[in-house]
């Protein structure tokens, strides 16, 4: 993706990228409402029954999440992402350090009034139906009954479960369960939403819907923290990310800054005839450019898939398949071929 701002050179310091931050500055004792989550030296060590150290799941993590951003926690399996989320929610107690969420200690129950949580597998009560599920969680908040009832119906509409709202959750598919899980995370219209592997197990359509939802929530002013090992999904939605590996913070910063490849320039243009390619090569070579590639850009597989699905919904029936076996560069079929 092209950007107008110059990429910082590897040698220039960036306040937010490249080197893992050491100990953060001492927190201002006065709560800063712009800092939604603050972790200082957060450590979690799992011990066995006899107190011997088994696993160091998180090692002195320092991070901040600001209001209104989508923050991604990345890392392979076992890197400490879920542990971090659980520490922030109070599901685990830190071995060292502290975590402050919305100005309160992570173990303070009162902070939960303003947060929503979508667990990895949408752990919900299978013997309840969708309406009962949302009603139950709604009752746990200080929401007047009338407003709660309205909100339940709104959320069911929002996640597209209107037709299945009276069925018990044990009969739901994976995608439906994730949707009702998201609905329960939003029942209290939270300021901060924590999503643990939100797109895990979803098909491309469901994944797109989930990502659109996340972006919409951000646009409403909410702060989202999501952890995932699906890099493409994180890249699409997150503003800032932190990369964990074996309990250590390896990288943190803005996505666009981190992904920017300095030293290379990308130019895209529409309606450029093939005859202009050689002229462009020459201009670039004249200015000392190397490894010149002039070619059509690639769309993403996700966009291709979604386009085909959208077209199929609009025009049901057989769709001519454009053969691209012999032409590696042809990319998307032309409009003539697809008609």
């Amino acid at each position, binding site marked *: 993706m092209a950007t107008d701002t110059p990429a910082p050179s590897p040698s220039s310091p960036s306040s937010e990228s490249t080197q893992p931050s050491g100990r953060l500055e001492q927190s201002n004792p006065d709560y800063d409402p712009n800092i939604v989550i603050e972790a200082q030296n957060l450590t979690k060590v799992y011990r066995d029954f006899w*107190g011997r150290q088994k696993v160091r799941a998180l090692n002195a993590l320092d991070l901040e999440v600001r209001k209104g951003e989508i923050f991604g926690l990345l890392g392979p399996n076992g890197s400490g992402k879920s542990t971090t989320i659980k520490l922030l929610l109070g599901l685990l107690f830190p071995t060292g350090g502290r975590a402050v969420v919305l100005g309160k200690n992570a173990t303070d129950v009162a902070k939960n009034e303003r947060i929503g949580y979508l667990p990895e597998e949408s752990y919900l009560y299978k013997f309840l139906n969708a309406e009962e599920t949302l009603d*139950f969680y709604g*009752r746990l908040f200080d929401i007047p009954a009338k407003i709660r009832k309205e909100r339940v119906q709104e959320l069911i509409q929002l996640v597209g479960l209107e037709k299945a709202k009276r069925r018990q959750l044990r009969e739901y598919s994976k995608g439906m369960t994730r949707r009702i899980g998201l609905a329960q995370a939003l029942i209290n219209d939270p300021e901060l939403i924590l999503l643990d592997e939100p797109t895990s197990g979803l098909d491309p359509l469901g994944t797109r819907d989930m990502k659109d939802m996340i972006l919409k929530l951000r646009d409403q002013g909410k702060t989202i923290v999501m952890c995932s090992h699906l890099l493409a999904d994180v890249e699409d939605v997150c503003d800032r990310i932190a990369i964990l590996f074996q309990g250590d913070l390896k990288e943190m910063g803005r996505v666009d800054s981190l992904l920017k490849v300095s030293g290379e320039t990308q130019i895209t243009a529409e309606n450029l005839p093939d005859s202009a390619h050689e002229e462009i090569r020459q201009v670039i070579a004249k200015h000392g450019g190397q490894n010149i590639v002039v070619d059509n850009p690639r769309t993403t597989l996700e966009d291709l898939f979604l386009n085909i699905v959208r077209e199929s919904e609009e025009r049901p029936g057989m769709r001519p398949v454009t053969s691209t076996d012999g032409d590696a560069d042809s990319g998307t079929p032309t409009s003539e071929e697809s008609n």
Partner: protein
Amino acid sequence: MYVESFPQFSEWFLPGLMLFLAVLLSGAALGLFFGYLVAAFRHGPFEAFYVVAQVAAEAVPDFLKTSPRRVVAMARLAIKEAMRRRVVLVTFAIFALMVLFGSWFMGGGSDKPEQIYVNFVLWGTQMLVLLMGLLLSAFSLPDDIKNKTIYTVVTKPVRSTEIVLGRMLGFATVGTLLLILMGLISYFFVWRSLDHSHELLGDSQTIAAFTAVDTETQRSTVTGKRVSQNALYEGATTVDNDHSHRLEIISDVREADSPALESDDIIRTIKREDGKIEYQRVMCLPVGNHTHAVTVTGQGDDAQITLGNSVGYFRARVPIYSSELTFYNREGVASNKGTNVGKESKRRGYIDGGSANNRSTLSRATFRFKDVRESRFPDLDFVPIDLTLGVYRSYKGDIEKRVIAGLQFESIPDKPDVENKFISEIIEFETNEFAVQTLPVPKKIVGRIVAPDGSLVEEGAYDLFDDFAGGNGKLMVILSCRDINQYIGVGRSDAYLRGNDQAYWWNFLKGYIGIWCQLMIMIALGVALSTFLGSPLVMLSAVAVMFVGFNSRFIRKLAGVDDQGNLINEQGGGPLESFVRVVTQQNTMVELDTGFFDTIIEKLDYLLVSMLQMLTYLAPNFGQLNFSNYLVHGYAVDNNQLLMAIAITIAFIFGLTLLGYFCLKTREIAK
């Protein structure tokens, strides 16, 4: 059945509250200590102080800020879970099967079918609801934690108190509703099963169905068995509910100037030559604890005799026990135990009826009653006295002839030196040694007034309440044996005045309240244990606690320690000393000879039995909450006992809620 007397609730409450607070504080101190040890292990000794202090400090706002709305929300969830898991449905189905088909296997000719039926429904209900309560509470939270559904709950603003209380409230609601349903069905089942009637056995329902008895020997001309005194004719009823009754027509002779007897069971009224009036009455002899009212329509040979529905099954007797029982031997010397007739009964003392050489005996048993007021008794012209007497025969004689006993009444003046005393005549009666027999003592008794020096003041008929117990409400009842060379055994619980019976339905309800108390404790225990144990361990622990609870009296007896801290069972010492004696082959009659270790063994034994004793206080005394025996044997549950049961239940629920809260609060849910 021996019915204990209970202190007044108001007398029991304060010491009970002190004991509860002492146990609570001890538990809290112990909990803090163990909590500190665990925290020190994890965080180090200094940090541990802060950790423990933080947990303790957060407890107060957690409890104060517990939201009833959230508790109810959690309770609703628990109710839905209980219903949709079908535990309740299966429990009720099993109960329904038991009730539908149980009666096929019951009765069987027993003369006390009400005990069998009532015991059956109470036992069945108790076992089923306790098991259901245990299953619900043992699996709910552990499943939530295992399936991680609790993540979506604890990440809402829900406190640990609300989770614990919500679960308890939800399962308690389900259990209570089921118990009410089972109680109603049980009551109906028992009533329907026992309610029956009979007809006369014979071709007609008249006197023709009776045969004359041999009035000289007082024996049946058909069976040769003894009949009642004054019996003229005998008959029998049809067999219904696996039994039949013997019927007798007895002669009830009254003075000519006495008021006319009005009764539905009179079949003939004859004016005798001596001017007395003879009423021939049809009596239905009891089988077990019940009989039937007889109604005679008409008079003479054509009078129709019908039997009503059963009477005597659904009773809730209110026994008024004596405050003191004293035995006197044949020389008139007082003791607590009575004559020794060997190992007949631990509970009873025996009084003898004299011998052929010495017919006059001063042997008797005296019962002293307090607060004998007319308002406490039924509005009848007699006062019922229930007796359950044992008989020891020193010679067999006529085995069918019952031993004759005598009852006499005396007043107990506060100042015997200056006040006169009322003494009644001796009322003789036949003992019925295998059942509770009710003697109707007339309110007006023939007797005499005696001066402090023993001289006769007056003779006549005197009122039991106004004269004998008048003034101070005290009354002495004297039991004697009227047959020579025979002995009558009695204990304090074997003789009581029968106060106004309580309503049976209210007594039945009290029995179910007892079951409800047990259920509430079981649910609270299951929920509390499930905050830190897995389901199988919760089941095991709860069953163990239940076992200790049902046998706590025995265990306390086993762990008997007196106020000075010495073992009550002095012979052989405690468990450790007994073990040493077994190994070293030292008998229990000699002092333990292990030298220096004697003291250590003694102290360790004291510690062990103290811990055992403390354990019995920690476990709920289910025996104290179980009123089944009262219902089965037809005694009223004392209201003080009921209040105590409810107070004990509340105390345990409170303590278990605290335990559950702290365990859940300090637990890492996601670990």
